[in-house]
């Protein structure tokens, strides 16, 4: 097999593309503006105190921001930059609290109607979740015991306590959009969020579960 010769750095290297797209992604204005203006004198808006990263850069080329950074003077706290922008590869996977690869957020196709007011009843939605999970755990009774939360408004998903292997099987089912590793919504109280599902039953709906 003819092997291509080792190439010098490519024009589309990740370092340049990443800087470009990162600069693009981080150049968005944010609601910080509102907070900032509260502290300023009303007559002369005495300057936008938005942190640098959060103000749209005035008509600058997408990677101008990155290029600017690249010419900073060396400093004790500046790490040596390698051609890769990623200065330190992670030695272990970083996990958010609550992520144990046993709790999975299973996101489903939304039911017909509007997200805040679906056409189908809450019980029917939950029944759909149970039937879906049953297909990989064997029975609806099993499924009822393995569901720890449901979401029946705004986003349609349920929390399932299954192995990683089963989570991949879930992803293959029709109507399942995503199977994501779940983590605590409320870290201090170790709560995964959504509407709690306890002992095979959904707790009555309360808007506080979706604020």
């Amino acid at each position, binding site marked *: 097999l003819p092997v291509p*010769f080792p190439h010098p*750095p490519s024009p*589309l290297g*990740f370092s340049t593309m990443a800087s470009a797209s990162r600069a693009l992604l981080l150049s968005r204005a944010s609601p*910080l503006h509102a907070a900032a203006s509260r502290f300023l004198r009303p007559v*002369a808006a005495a300057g936008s105190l938005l942190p640098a990263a959060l103000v749209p850069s005035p008509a600058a*080329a997408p990677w101008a921001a990155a290029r600017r950074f690249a010419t900073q003077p060396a400093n004790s706290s500046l790490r040596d930059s390698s051609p890769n922008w990623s200065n330190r590869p992670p030695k272990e*996977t*970083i996990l958010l609290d609550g992520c144990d690869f046993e709790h999975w957020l299973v996101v489903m196709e939304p039911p017909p109607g509007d997200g805040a007011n679906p056409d189908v009843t809450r019980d029917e939605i939950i029944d759909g979740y149970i039937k879906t999970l049953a297909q990989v755990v064997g029975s609806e009774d099993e499924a009822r015991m393995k569901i720890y939360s449901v979401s029946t408004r705004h986003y349609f998903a349920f929390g399932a306590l299954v192995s990683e292997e089963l989570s991949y099987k879930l992803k293959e089912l029709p109507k399942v959009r995503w199977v994501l*590793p779940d983590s605590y919504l409320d870290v201090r109280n170790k709560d995964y969020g959504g509407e709690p599902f306890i002992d095979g039953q959904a707790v009555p709906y309360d808007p506080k579960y979706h604020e």
Partner: protein
Amino acid sequence: LRLRMLSPAAAVVSAVRAAGGSPTALRRAHARLLKDGLALHPPAPSLLVSAYAKCRLLPDARRVFDESPSRDLHLYSSLLAAVSNSDAPYLVLPIIRRMLSADALQPDHFVLASIASASARLRSLSLGKQLHGHFVASPYSGDDVVKSSLIDMYCKCGFPDDARKVFDSLSAKNSVVWTALVSGYASNGYTDEALELFRSMPGRGLFAWTALVSGYVRAGESVSAVELFVEMRRDAVTIDDAFVLSAVTGGAADLAALVLGRQLHGLSMRLGFLSSMMVGNALVDMYSKCSDIHSAREVFEEITVRDIISWTTMIVGEAQHGRAGEAFALYDRMILAGVKPNEVTFVGLIYACSHAGLVQKGRQLFDSVKREYDINPGLQLYTCYLDLLSRSGHLSEAEELITTMPYEPDEAAWGALLSACKKHNDAEMCVRVADNLLELGPKYPSTCVLLSNVYAVNGKWGSVSTVRKLMANMKINKEPGYSWVEVGRESRLFHAGEVPVDMREEILVFLEELVSEMRRRGYVPDTSSVMHDLEEHEKEHHLFLHSERLAVAFGILKSLPGSVIRVVKNLRVCGDCHTVMKLISEIFQRKIIVRDATRFHHFEGGKCSCGEFW
């Protein structure tokens, strides 16, 4: 009627205020004031200027200013504030000159603050410093608002230490200015200082955390950024703004940490931010960089309102995954949706053309950049286009481009041309291009190897020894190779040549059996990519322990059968490993995706998606 019963000044104030933010109401109020003879006397002009500015009618504001028979500081400060917040902050300069000379006014604290704000937006250190000097000598030198603007200016101009000096002189520090300095330190790479300042902040809300996390990501320290995010979550800070999510997702993209990215996807959904375009864009980028182009595409299609960043991120992602057809189809949809492409869009598209060998299409696209969209192509776009021409054998056209383009060609550009010349066996051009590259002074070892081979093939032994000397002075080991692989929730890092103790037996046995099986299928190790001065069998052994190989071995041994193995390598995959990966995918019937320094390789059934184009 009510208007005439108030004092003239109060009447004016009331009229302008009543107009609110509506241009028509404001113009009506202005007309009435003109008729009542109140428009040209203070406080009307400065109120009108500010009101027009709020309605984003800067030319009208300017006209009121120009028509005002007398100009006081109040009027100047209204105009300067308006201009410094506009799209053209550089327009403060002529206004300041006029104020100082024609009207002989000395700036007050309002004016100074506006100028500071303009210099921040212009990132003009020289203007900012002049202003600072003026400020210190003025009677307003204790003013905290001006100081806050100066802090912002120094941070944006990249001098957070100067910002810190001003910060320390503040009589009262509010959370906005603390946040500005934390962000200034962090995004300029002074991450230790940022963290220290952050920890000493009294009361840290979401804005401060956001500034810190996004600053760290910007500075390239994504691991720390994510660790801080985890800490923020433990601090029970209410996330009522999506920016921090998009920033930390950007960090996951940088790290190619798919497991983390998926967790953040789930979290964004539970927090109710999945409809945010900013979060959507960050997720598309993350999935794309984590080698999961299908998920990237799914998220993209779910984004309800898409902007140029959404489209460009997706197009570039498809291009880097070798899916040229998808990239072009997206471009067509984007144009149909009325979104104007930017330079990065074209870099992605032309890269896709390069991969698919579509020269004519690439030419058309490159021409349309200036002609249809009035964008001046930068060096990166030129280099990309050059790469397309070179790879497809249009060497003379490529050479003409490199000599006529409005930028100094860099090592990447000359290198791309030289590799192509070598491949197409154009001896005379090879040497010519090589000489240019040598004159430039190559910095990468792989460039030197290419040069020395080209000269050797053409008998230019003098040049060969020049290159060899260069190479000897360069540290070949400057960039050690490493790869990491995510298996389930475990992520492992492998350095070239180092097998971790706990897996030693398993991995070495696996690799040896693999080599025998490969040899049976006709594999011969290709040692030309080993740059060290070693014996042949030592070179073979060296290849044996390349980091991506160790990572894939680990992946096959430890992952769920049938799952995709994802590896990220910091350098370009070498030729031999590329061959080996293809064979592994065939032997073990597994899909392997390797992200190297330049692109993604999808290995499946003995083939690679890159089509040998890397």
